[in-house]
């Protein structure tokens, strides 16, 4: 079988696209690729209009099966190819788009899902959202990006102590440490004093020492769903008098200055606190990324919803218990034995790419008190209950293995492709019988 894969962001433009809405599709494609290679021959194309159907007809003439996996949301998935096309997409809202705008009929996802006849997404939550409108029988499968094997292997090498002994890591980029930053420069304009940090300078070699109970989160600060404001304010409120609590925010975006200024302003607003906040923007070599994972007691997520959340999956696969909500995709792998659950509630919102901003769907608003409680409880466990921490850590590894190991992904993909073949056969029998 030939499996053609494509995402709009690819190796050549990932740097410029880092942090843009569609960029994470490339990472998902990269994670799927090795598993797809076990099931067929894989070709990644950068110009599907040019290549997909040529490759398809080629296969057809040889009698070989061929499928096109478009790692894209349905409204950016081509539906005019002869080649069977399957969108592989992430989604974290309670309803899928069922209206179109700006003259693009594909904004109504029903049209695309109907035309493709099948789809792959990453969570049970989204499978249900799709079946709500496409019918309970619609062939869609929840297959997350298989990140477990790589990170679980790393995790085994690492010490998994809840309270981190001093670890030194090096990075090239920008490092902001609340302990050494003059936050007076980030107050209201009329009260500003001191000099703000130069954010536009060239990347520098920095070194960072972490110790104590360390919370880490990796995200794109411009992604409005991430709700870093609550993550920060609940941390500062809970650990106002706790000097050995540290929150490390590793930020991914190509242009970080505005976000950093905003975050520094929030660091100012939350004053004063004895806990420590570290903002990292820059590239970490694999060894240093591993050291960051090793120096992490807990991974934190306070989003309004997740299509799957690769960083959370990665840290949990390494055996890091989480602080995370039990909504959207996270409900598939987060539970109270591997995480401190952050409560959330429905809130009406718009589909993120709807320029009308019409209220049509729900996101999941964080319960701030519950985030504070999760910080407090997790800190107490780290300090006083190493056994429970170890159980949570082991359970995180097991849960993520079930959710996103290469083996489970392979099984799900295999079943999905078989299902497709059966459907295709049934259709051709029907056609020939008629």
């Amino acid at each position, binding site marked *: 079988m030939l499996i053609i894969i494509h995402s709009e962001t690819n190796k050549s433009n990932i740097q410029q696209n880092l942090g843009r809405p569609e960029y994470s599709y490339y990472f998902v494609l990269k994670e799927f690729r090795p598993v797809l290679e076990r099931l067929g021959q894989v070709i990644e194309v950068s110009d599907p209009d040019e290549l997909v159907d040529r490759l398809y007809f080629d296969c057809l003439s040889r009698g070989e099966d061929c499928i096109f996996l478009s790692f894209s949301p349905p409204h950016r998935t081509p539906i005019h190819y002869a080649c069977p096309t399957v969108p592989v997409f992430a989604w974290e809202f309670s309803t899928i788009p069922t209206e179109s705008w700006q003259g693009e009929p594909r904004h109504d996802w029903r049209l695309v899902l109907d035309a493709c006849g099948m789809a792959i997404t990453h969570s049970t939550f989204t499978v249900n959202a799709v079946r709500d409108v496409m019918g309970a029988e619609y062939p869609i499968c929840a297959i997350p990006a298989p990140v477990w094997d790589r990170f679980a292997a790393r995790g085994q090498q690492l010490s998994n102590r809840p309270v981190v002994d001093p670890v030194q890591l090096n990075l090239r980029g920008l490092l902001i440490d609340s302990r050494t930053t003059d936050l007076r420069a980030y107050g209201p304009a009329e009260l500003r004093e001191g000099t703000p940090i130069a954010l536009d300078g060239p990347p520098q070699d920095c070194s960072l020492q972490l110790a104590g109970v360390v919370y880490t989160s990796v995200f794109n600060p411009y992604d409005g769903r991430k709700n870093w404001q609550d993550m920060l*304010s609940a941390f500062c409120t809970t650990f106002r008098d706790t000097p050995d609590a540290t929150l490390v925010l590793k930020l991914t975006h190509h242009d970080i200055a505005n976000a950093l200024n905003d975050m520094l302003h929030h660091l100012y607003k939350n004053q004063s606190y004895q806990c420590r906040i570290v903002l990292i923007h820059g590239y970490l070599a694999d060894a240093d990324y591993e050291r960051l994972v090793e120096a992490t007691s807990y991974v934190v997520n306070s989003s309004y919803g997740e299509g799957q959340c690769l960083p959370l999956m990665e840290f949990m696969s390494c055996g890091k218990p989480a602080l995370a909500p039990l909504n959207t995709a996270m409900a598939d792998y987060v539970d109270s034995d591997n995480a401190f659950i952050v409560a959330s509630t*429905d*809130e009406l919102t718009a589909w993120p790419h709807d320029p009308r901003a019409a*209220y049509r769907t729900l996101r999941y608003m964080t319960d701030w008190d*519950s985030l504070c409680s999760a910080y407090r409880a997790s800190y107490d466990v780290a300090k006083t209950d190493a056994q429970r921490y170890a159980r949570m850590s082991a359970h995180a590894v097991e849960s993520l293995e079930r959710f996103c190991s290469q083996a489970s992904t392979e099984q799900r993909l295999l079943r999905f492709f078989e299902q497709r073949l059966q459907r295709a056969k049934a259709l051709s029998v029907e056609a020939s019988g008629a």
Partner: protein
Amino acid sequence: MNFILYSDVNDSSISQSLGRPEYSYYFVLKAYRPVLESLGRVHVVSSAAEVDPLYRQFQQAGQECLFLSFSPPNKTPTDLQCPMVCVVAWEYDSIPSEDWSDDPRQDWSQTLARHGRVITLSSHTAHAVRRALGENFPVLVLPTPLWERFAQVRQQYPSAPINPGSTLQIKGCIIDSRTLGLSADGLIAPILNEQELELRDLIVEEPEPEPEPPPLPPPLTLRRRGFITKHYLREGYRALTTDTEHRPLFLLKHNLLMWYREAVRDLVPQALRAQLTRFRSPAPEPLPEPLPLPLATTVSEALEQAEHPQACLPDTTEQVDIEVSGVVYVSVFNPDDGRKNWHHLITAFCWALRDAEDATLVLKITQNDLSTYYVHLITLLSQLSPFACRVVVMHGYLQDEEFARLYGAASFYVNASRCEGLCLPLMEFMSCARPVIAPNHTAMGDYIDERVGFIVKSSHEPTIWPEDARILYRTLRHRPDWGSLKAAYADSYAMAKHRPEDYQAMASAANERMRDYCSFAPVQQRLAQFLGMTPGSETTALKAEAGTAPC
């Protein structure tokens, strides 16, 4: 005993202060006054400078005297000889207790400690004061007595889960979601071949060259409305795609407003129809201000016209009325007041009851300037459309009798605030035996529970003390749970439709709660006790009927 009363806001300045944070002090003063009158002689002064001369006068006459300051402690004079006590309305979990500027009055704890006691409107505020000043600090929690005032409304408008139909009147304007022609698609331009579109429009719409000036605007036919709509869609699209110094949202809002004005406004309230009919029929004489159509063809032209946004707003000088019926939810608030969380109030209603044609949300706005929220409101309603339920916004001033009708029209009162120092409208509607949807946090914790209404859950979130120029997080407010608000709408609607006896039980409980909480006698008794007096011993006996003016 002599009581000297002072508030920053008074009878002559209240109309300008409507909706400002301190305006509620004026209503509190008015509501307390009859109670104070029952315990002594009341003297309302118009300036704090009058307090001490009056005090000395009473001293010479051998009479007792107490100054009650109805202002936040930071605005209370500190150099008076007259014994005084502050009346504090406050909705945060801590009082300002740091000296952050050169003005030591910003530290409330010092001022209140000097007075040695304080009167607050809620247990929540009392708790915040005691956190700063100690558990034994003398605090009187004194809600405003207002229950008796609504005896007549209770009698005239018995509670009913389903309103059979009532007419609301107001001097101002009424915005009705049913007549706005709302559409989410109207918020953007479709991506079409713009040139082609323009051509087609010109071919269809360009009138034959006509010799006679002045050219009248064409009648508002459906096609014409379509043309105007397309025009503003294009403008809106340009606003999003063209680089200008103005924010795209500003331009979008502007275009939405212009579109509304030109394409659909005549479908809106009666008050406007008179103005617009002259465009429909041939005018007998030249119009003083003909509306050129299309108005703006470039963003810069549009911007010039945006300099006078007020000119596009509906007329607010007429007496207007509207008929409402079914399950009617009412809320009274100022959209500028960030505590009110009015977006949730509307979005949860429209989502929970989007298929319920007989559900109506009536919003009485206490804000004089329509332009501060109008475009915002219309945008929000467009984003929510389509919905079968109905949103009615009443802008303007209600006479007592008109307000009574509003109380009477309500099946439920709704509050979804982040925090409240007291919330007079909520208490008033409850005093009219209306069950509610409301959180049980801050001041509402004193009188809201599941017997009187549907509780909106909430969590906390950090916030600043409103006066704190440093804008540091120093206190907490509440984050209402939208899901719970939505559920409260759905549950209350189901109760109104299917369980009238439960509704009536809740309505009676609301009324009884208010009788116990804010009727005259218990309030009088608590105040007398706090001041070490015996009610009735000094002056007038209990008065059954308290104040007269609703807010």
